[in-house]
């Protein structure tokens, strides 16, 4: 049963990643690169957002995903050629591999990389044996 649930969780992640990518493209946004590192209690999500100011980042945490949006103010020759005068928007919906607590969620932005640390929701409750 656990394997079955894990399979469906994995399928959901694959499907949502693809859906998110297509949605971002349709809206003319660039999907930033991201990475997820899981430890026992935490999920660390880092997102590559070069050229974005901290105040231009919008983060929204949903039950099953994290949405990251940002406005890029810097330009490189290649980006200028591709996007002309249109500002570059980053947007990505990152499916979470497991359920997380709403609080405490921490985020920091350093050298163009955003890192969000989420606490995993505890699945079971320990029952003391008397």
């Amino acid at each position, binding site marked *: 049963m656990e394997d079955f649930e894990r399979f469906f969780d994995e399928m959901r992640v694959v499907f949502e990643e693809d859906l998110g990518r297509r949605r971002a493209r349709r809206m003319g946004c660039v999907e930033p690169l991201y990475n997820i590192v899981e430890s026992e209690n935490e999920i660390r999500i880092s997102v590559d957002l070069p050229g974005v100011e901290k105040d231009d980042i919008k983060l929204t945490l949903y039950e099953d995903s994290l949405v990251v949006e940002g406005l890029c103010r810097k330009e490189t020759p290649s*980006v200028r050629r591709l996007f002309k005068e249109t500002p570059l928007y980053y947007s990505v919906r990152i499916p979470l591999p497991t359920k997380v607590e709403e609080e405490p969620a921490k985020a920091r932005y350093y050298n*163009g990389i955003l890192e969000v640390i989420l606490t995993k929701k505890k699945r079971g409750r320990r029952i003391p044996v008397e």
Partner: protein
Amino acid sequence: MAGRSMIIEEVKTVFDRPLILEGIPDTGLVGTISLSHYLSKLGFEKTGYLETDDFPPMLVMRNGKIMDVFEIYYKDNVYILRSELPIPQEGVYDIVGQIVDWVKSKNPRLFLSLGGIPHPYRIDITDPKVYAVPTSEEALKIASKMKDVEILRDGLLFGPKALILKRLERLGMNGLGLFVQSYLNYPDPGSAAKVLTLLPQIGLEKVEVDSLIASAEEIRMQYRELMRRTDDEIRRMRSLPPMTEQSLV
């Protein structure tokens, strides 16, 4: 041509036990970024390219000129191999075979592969560590003498760099992989700068890296698409069946 790939040299070069540097796209694009910076500072001449059916049908334009996807540069007994695309999984054995045959024909003093080794908490690291993978006793001696470099004792490497180093080891050639801690799937100019600072220790010309660090965010924007493609290839190669004797010949 046994496979679908071939290295073409357009310009005759005079060499004597040269140094060969390789920066195929890989983890953090460390090799690609560092060698692009190195080339931009030192005026190397393009002398050849890789012809292959394994790259997607694409055209690279630079300063209004059509360029090759995989290029060879030369200056003062040093060759640089640089690619605008990752080596695709379908062509990895054939392309690596061509590269190794070409390297062998040059009888190099040392083949140097520059790459990244992923660290999950790279964001917290200000001075990334560099690990060496030598393919011979002589290469081990060179690596052991280098400051700021540790020999990789245990670990797994995937992809074309791993295959090249393995084949050089089989051939008894001097190869050295220098792998610096980097982001797995973001272009990492900081780590590229770190590996560049080590090159003078093996007799290569020193280049300034301050401009590379200062323009890190622009570089990451510029290389985003290449990083995405490279990351896809790395993930695909991790699911390849293990190497066999036959595939290594």
